[in-house]
């Protein structure tokens, strides 16, 4: 890139960075600086990301975007690549623009070999016109956020349409009825030209063992409701308490997972399939396994935080975070035994919780404290199962005090099953500050 073309970004980038610095001092939002720069230099994002040797990867899906983005980023770094990625949850276009701006030089350069971006499915297609993806990884279509999308089919189409914007590779879930049929969108039922299509999946044995299945949405528009069969480049073949085995190109890769749960195993297979197709012959199972072993748990997914209880004893809090029915059920299914001390919480950050009546709570034998604005609604649901409930305390601070007043559990660990918003609040209240970029 010539210095002249670099100079054209000097003013917009400096301005954007200045706005960003001001916004940070004021403790304000992080999306506006990206807006400033992109308004002043509309092609800035495409030019900056267009310099990446391996282009941009989009990670889309109803569930597991943050986790998988994190996994893929670390696996690629484990292969020596410089990876740019957006902070977890900052997955709307202006937020992504701001994080690109933050790491760009004033000449519009960002020193990375590849970008791995978690992108909100509702904005992904539009964003692809600004930052074209070379690879699109689509994780799953689950009945989720109906208040936002209403039709699961519509979400599936948003993701399938975005996947087709990939210049090189589409990577998707063989076990997902909607996504497994993406090849049908191409002439003759197969994409023989770019992009190529790669699948990840789980073995029949693994799926058969899942008490409530994988929670992928049924494809009612197709006469064949089930997924279309395909060979998988990466297949989850077993999971245990701490990890999973994934076969890739005939090799078995044993990975340590950030948290217990089948969904994390499938996310790992998705990350490995994507890394393998991007890296080609350079992909090494041992490097991937090493990257998983070194990975820190993402925020709230299997994260263990130290707290001091009322008696001054040191214990740990295990956060089990869920977004919707699928992630709550899969997390409950992954509990090796009913946890000794349990806090369960949902607030108005999850507007519609009618799906809690579809959840099988037999993974728990009691709950000590129910909290959050939806606490009474949760208690009502669980009373229908005859669940033993210790206390219902909608105020989170008081609820945490109740948990702290309990004696140290034999496992040394209290389990807090929470939605995203409560996880963020509870973390702060036990003294763990929010990190700006968790990756």
């Amino acid at each position, binding site marked *: 890139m010539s210095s002249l073309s670099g100079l054209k970004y000097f003013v917009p980038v400096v301005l954007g960075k200045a706005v960003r610095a001001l916004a940070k001092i004021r403790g304000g939002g992080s999306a506006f600086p990206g807006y400033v720069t992109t308004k002043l230099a509309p092609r800035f994002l495409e030019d900056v990301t267009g310099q990446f040797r391996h282009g941009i990867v989009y990670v889309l899906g109803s569930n597991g975007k943050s986790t998988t983005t994190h996994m893929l980023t670390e696996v690629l770094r484990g292969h020596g690549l410089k990876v740019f990625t957006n902070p977890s949850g900052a997955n709307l276009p202006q937020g992504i623009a701001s994080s690109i701006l933050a790491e760009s030089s004033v000449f519009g350069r960002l020193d990375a070999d590849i970008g791995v971006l978690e992108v909100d499915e509702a904005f992904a297609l539009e964003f692809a016109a600004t930052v074209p993806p070379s690879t699109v990884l689509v994780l799953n279509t689950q009945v989720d956020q109906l208040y936002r999308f209403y039709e699961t089919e519509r979400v599936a189409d948003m993701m399938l349409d975005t996947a087709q914007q990939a210049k090189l590779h589409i990577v998707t879930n063989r076990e997902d009825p909607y996504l497994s049929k993406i090849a049908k969108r191409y002439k003759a039922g197969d994409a023989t030209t770019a992009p190529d299509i790669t699948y990840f999946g789980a073995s029949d044995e693994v799926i058969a063992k899942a008490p409530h299945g994988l929670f992928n949405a*049924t494809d009612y*528009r197709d006469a064949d409701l089930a997924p279309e069969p395909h060979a998988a480049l990466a297949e989850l073949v077993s999971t245990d308490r701490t990890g999973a085995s994934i076969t890739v190109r005939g090799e078995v890769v044993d990975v340590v997972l950030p948290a217990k749960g089948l969904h994390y195993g499938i996310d790992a297979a998705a990350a490995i399939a994507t890394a393998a197709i991007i890296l080609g012959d350079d992909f090494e199972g041992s490097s991937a396994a090493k990257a998983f072993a070194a990975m820190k748990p993402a925020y709230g997914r299997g994260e263990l935080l130290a707290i001091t209880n009322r008696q001054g004893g040191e214990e740990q809090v295990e956060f089990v975070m869920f977004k919707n029915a699928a992630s709550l059920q899969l997390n409950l299914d992954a509990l090796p035994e009913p946890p000794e001390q349990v806090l369960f919480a949902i607030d108005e950050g999850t507007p519609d919780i009618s799906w809690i*009546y579809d959840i099988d709570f037999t993974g728990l034998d009691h709950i000590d404290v129910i909290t959050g604005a939806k606490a009474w609604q949760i208690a009502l649901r669980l009373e229908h199962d005859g669940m033993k409930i210790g206390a219902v305390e909608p105020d989170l601070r008081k609820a945490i005090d109740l948990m702290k007043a309990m004696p140290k559990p034999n496992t040394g660990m209290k389990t807090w099953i929470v939605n995203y918003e409560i996880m963020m609040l509870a973390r702060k209240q036990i003294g763990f500050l929010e990190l700006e970029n968790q990756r």
Partner: protein
Amino acid sequence: MSATVTLAQLYPEELGVAGDRGNIMAIRERLARAGASVSVVEHRVGGTLPSDADLVLIGNGPLSAIRNIYDDLQTIAPELRALAGNGVPIFAYGSGAELLGHDVTLLDGAVIAGLDVLPFRTTRVTERKVGYVIVDTPLGQVVGFEDNASLWQLDSDAAAFGTLVAGGGNGDGTHEGVVLGSSIATQVGGPVLPLNPLLTDALIRSIASRRDFDYAPGTAHADLDRYATRAREVISANAKHVFSRI
């Protein structure tokens, strides 16, 4: 009380995406705690609707799922009409309820014919109503969560389920749902029956009077009632909160 009550739930997978299982659970649990035995029959495509059903429930699902059950619903329509004609109450929520009305006009102008069992018709619109909803009904105040993009237009002689205190309801700014005899169609979710024991008990009482047994909630219902009361208080307090649609 030693009655056995049969609840028929239509299409639990396709029309059961909004916690509709919770409506069944509420009726079953309240009957069980009053000493009745309850049998729940899930009607699926290709099955036979039980002719001795005491209550028929249908719930909410996406248009895509309606494709899947539509032919079967036409097939069982005569049995469904016969049950309704015999005074068996129907409790219908969301898009399942809409299929029991006259018809449903979709955004693209296409019209899905309904079963004409309930006196209203539906027009799907672009603007969604999402959030807590409060309705004053002859039974008392009913609260819940609504999430739909449907306008319900009642026949001129039809009665609404209730009058809106908060939320969007039928879309006319005033009414929510429709009733016909002991049958109720509503867009109040949450699900609505666990949250509103007065409504659940009214449905149970109409079963009880038809089957000629006594039903009265007692101490076994105290925790269910207490949690419902507190949940309803919070919902009423938070009902003004409008959930943004992104």
